[in-house]
């Protein structure tokens, strides 16, 4: 799959990427690059990655997602991963994986609230 297959929407200063397709290794890598380019272009402050559409997340995709969050952080953008299904959470923990480097929230609403909270606490510092 080429890049650009996963739409990245801008809402104010936040980017929202909703993954609705089954990810292959190459599409996951293309997505990572697309997100980082979108951050640079839009000068967004926050990124929400919605994985409600993924019924399975293996260690490769998990690694891409957490790396993307860490890379975004280096560019000044906080990442919140939202919509992880119960089965996915259970599987990743059983495999010994922890989502280090990204915030997580239940859904897009909670993710937006968390980003607002993070940004207001940064503004106070």
């Amino acid at each position, binding site marked *: 799959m080429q890049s650009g297959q996963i739409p990245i929407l801008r809402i104010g200063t936040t980017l929202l990427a909703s993954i609705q397709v089954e990810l292959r290794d190459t599409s996951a890598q293309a997505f990572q690059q697309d997100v980082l380019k979108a951050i640079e272009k839009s000068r967004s402050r926050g990124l929400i990655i919605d994985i409600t559409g993924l019924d399975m997340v*293996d*260690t490769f995709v998990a690694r891409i997602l957490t790396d993307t969050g860490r890379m975004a952080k280096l560019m000044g953008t906080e990442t919140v991963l939202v919509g992880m299904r119960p*089965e996915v959470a259970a*599987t990743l923990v059983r495999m010994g994986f922890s989502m280090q480097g990204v915030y997580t929230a239940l859904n897009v609403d909670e993710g937006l609230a968390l980003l607002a909270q993070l940004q207001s606490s940064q503004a106070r510092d």
Partner: protein
Amino acid sequence: MAARVLSTQEMKITSEDDVVLVRRAVRALAERRGFDSFGSAALTTAATELGRNIWVHARSGLVILEELEDGLRHGVRVEFRDQGPGIPDVAWAMAGGNSTASSLGLGLSGTKRLVDDFQLQSEAGRGTCVRITKWKRF
């Protein structure tokens, strides 16, 4: 008592797309065997890790999917065979946190934790065979 094999299906892996096809076939089989969504996700994830291992390390291989019945138990067994470089140090590869392919190094050790039985045979230069079995929870 040996489990009865109800069906056998063979799939070749020669591309990244084939890994996705194996994943879908395993999910379909798990659902047909009546696995719940957690069991199905665990088995599908395990199969994806092992299918990817074939593609990344050996570039081609064979996957054999079997539906099992053992008395009242229903299960799925999946075997992943390749003639790739093999694993020189199985203990090291199984320890977790070690990786040769810029992944997490959790593939083999993590996969073992997702299934009920995990058998790995590998010889450096000859290839690798991994067989996983998962039984449906009552």
